[in-house]
């Protein structure tokens, strides 16, 4: 029964409204609270946010300065260590900690150095997709009419292409598949989701009275778009982008696993998972550790996205 929630929000509203009055200086102690500020206060108390952001911070640190975590080279192998899988728990962080792979390279070192590829792909694809998709969605939603019709059909066409299959086809066109090529392939197909979310959000915000009020004041299109519409349409985009970031990381791993994404000598979790599968019976650890890292990373971003969603939209709780 929707009316129940309505009254519930009415109560909430009566609660949220501090009893401030022009004639009551008693309420002065109350500080200015922006919506972003409220969301941040909410986030800080959310354990999911704390766990995921600590994890993500660690991952960022690893990818920026991998040598802080290991001195071993991820590519230098010594066949002496071939498949030596016995974990030596006493020496956390040493090259032999998580064992060696077929070519005697330290699994731990490869794990650390492989982080960078995943994080770069995730962050760059998300950045490009949010920028391009955001602009497309904003134009499409704000201007409407034929502009919207053209952009929406274009979005539909790209949306219709199966994401991984499409990325494979794009990747086939490149001889040398560097991280940047993978970023391009994923971004090329990934922008549609953000476009749709942004378009929907802009259409909703566009009808708000404060947008009409700005127009009535004589505000120009740029001002209306960037001062009124964008800040109010950002919330769902941020949430979707954060969750999608995890998806892009796993997409990169999937492509590498299939042999179409990154390939040796590039160090990446996907490449290692691909190599590990073949030896799963003799040396499961070669497959296990990159898989765990990958899952943790994806999980961290999805958890962060959910936490942000809850903070930005308290009605969901």
């Amino acid at each position, binding site marked *: 029964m929707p009316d129940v929630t309505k009254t519930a929000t009415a109560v909430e509203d009566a609660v*949220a409204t501090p009893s401030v009055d022009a004639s009551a200086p008693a309420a002065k102690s109350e500080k*200015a*609270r*922006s*919506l972003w500020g409220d969301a941040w206060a909410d986030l800080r108390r959310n354990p999911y946010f704390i766990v995921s952001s600590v994890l993500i911070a660690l991952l960022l640190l690893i990818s920026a300065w991998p040598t802080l975590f290991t001195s071993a080279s991820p590519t230098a192998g010594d066949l002496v260590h071939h498949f030596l899988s016995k974990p030596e728990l006493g020496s956390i962080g040493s090259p032999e900690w998580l064992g060696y792979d077929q070519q005697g390279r330290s699994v731990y070192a490869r794990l650390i150095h492989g982080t960078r590829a995943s994080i770069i792909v995730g962050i760059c694809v998300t950045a490009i997709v949010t920028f391009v998709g955001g602009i497309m969605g904003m134009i499409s939603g704000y201007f409407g009419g034929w502009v919207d019709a053209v952009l929406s059909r274009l979005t539909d066409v790209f949306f219709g292409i199966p994401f991984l299959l499409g990325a494979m086809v794009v990747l086939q066109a490149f001889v040398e598949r560097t991280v940047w090529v993978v970023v391009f392939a994923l971004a090329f197909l990934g922008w549609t989701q953000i476009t749709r979310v942004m378009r929907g959000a802009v259409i909703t915000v566009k009808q*708000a009275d404060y947008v*009409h009020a700005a127009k*009535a004041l*004589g505000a120009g299109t740029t001002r209306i778009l960037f001062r009124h519409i964008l*800040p109010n349409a950002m919330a769902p985009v941020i949430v979707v982008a954060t969750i999608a970031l995890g998806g892009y990381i796993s997409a990169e791993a999937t492509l590498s696993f299939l042999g179409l994404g990154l390939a040796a000598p590039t160090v990446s979790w996907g490449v290692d998972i691909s190599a590990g599968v073949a030896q799963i019976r003799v040396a499961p650890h070669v497959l296990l550790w990159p898989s765990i890292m990958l899952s943790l990373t994806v999980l961290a971003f999805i958890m962060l996205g959910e936490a942000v969603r809850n903070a930005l939209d308290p009605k969901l709780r």
Partner: protein
Amino acid sequence: MADIGKNDEAVAAALDAPVGRGEPILQVRNLQKHFPLTQGILFKKQVGAVKAVDGVSFDLYQGETLGIVGESGCGKSTVAKLLMNLERATAGEVFYKGQDITKLSGRALKAVRRNIQMVFQDPYTSLNPRMTVGDIIGEPYDIHPEVAPKGDRRRKVQELLDVVGLNPEYINRYPHQFSGGQRQRIGIARGLALNPEIIICDEPVSALDVSVQAQVINLMGKLQEEFNLSYLFIAHDLSIVRHISDRVGVMYLGKMAEIGTDEQIYEHPTHPYTQALLSAVPVPDPQARAHRERIILTGDVPSPANPPSGCSFRTRCWKAQERCSQETPILAVPARFQGQNTPAAHFSACHFAEEKQVVPVH
């Protein structure tokens, strides 16, 4: 290009000229807004139109309050949007100081906007939730920097807060930290920032609690006197409109049914729709409920996409005759009252206009 620019400047200069009290500041002539109804996905074909506003004319005089009443869907809010140029009129003119503003754009339109401002219905959606109160009220100065030099703005915003009865120290707070009535005060302050001559109020108090409504109405009355404002006050609450208006227009299905001074409309209505509307308003006096005559209309307002022929009210009117379906009544002093010096002699669009008192007179 240069010509247009020059022309704009001339227009802008003309618009800043003062208008004397008692002269019309806004003249609306045969204003129309038809929203096309389309069919088809790729090739859109127009299959009809919603006649939201269908030929409305009235004058707004300097310093007065003109109330526009009507039920939902009668087009009163669309009139507000047309006057604000938030929607483009399908036909008709709006003369502001003799200049038709419906066709303006660019600088000339911006100049007009300085002088015609709006207060919105819903104080919860009319303020940008991500901006501070200071930014909201100060935004008019960002858009029209010539009104206030940069260093002066903070002081001006604080003055405005004080004028509308809010603590000037609240300048850094966000809208959600205020109650409905306070937010509406913020909306009014924003409307006042550019020192406009006309304020169009679209249901400014209908979203507020009863005890707060009175505060806002009193504030608007005070501001009108202080700044010599002309109000176009759009509302569905007939009691509030009577309280605040000098003249009142009654709209039905995109047309003006009756217009006159508040006394003419409330005490001497001649249009059957006005009479029904007035008689239906619940009066907060239980003594009155026994001996009040109420005209209960049957049915609902017809769809503006397919209005009845002739008089649009005839489908619900108890006086309707053959003539009403064939001939659209024009808004004028009805023939039987012409030349008479009675309060019933005011504009009413009915073939069978007849005075009938429905509101108890004290």
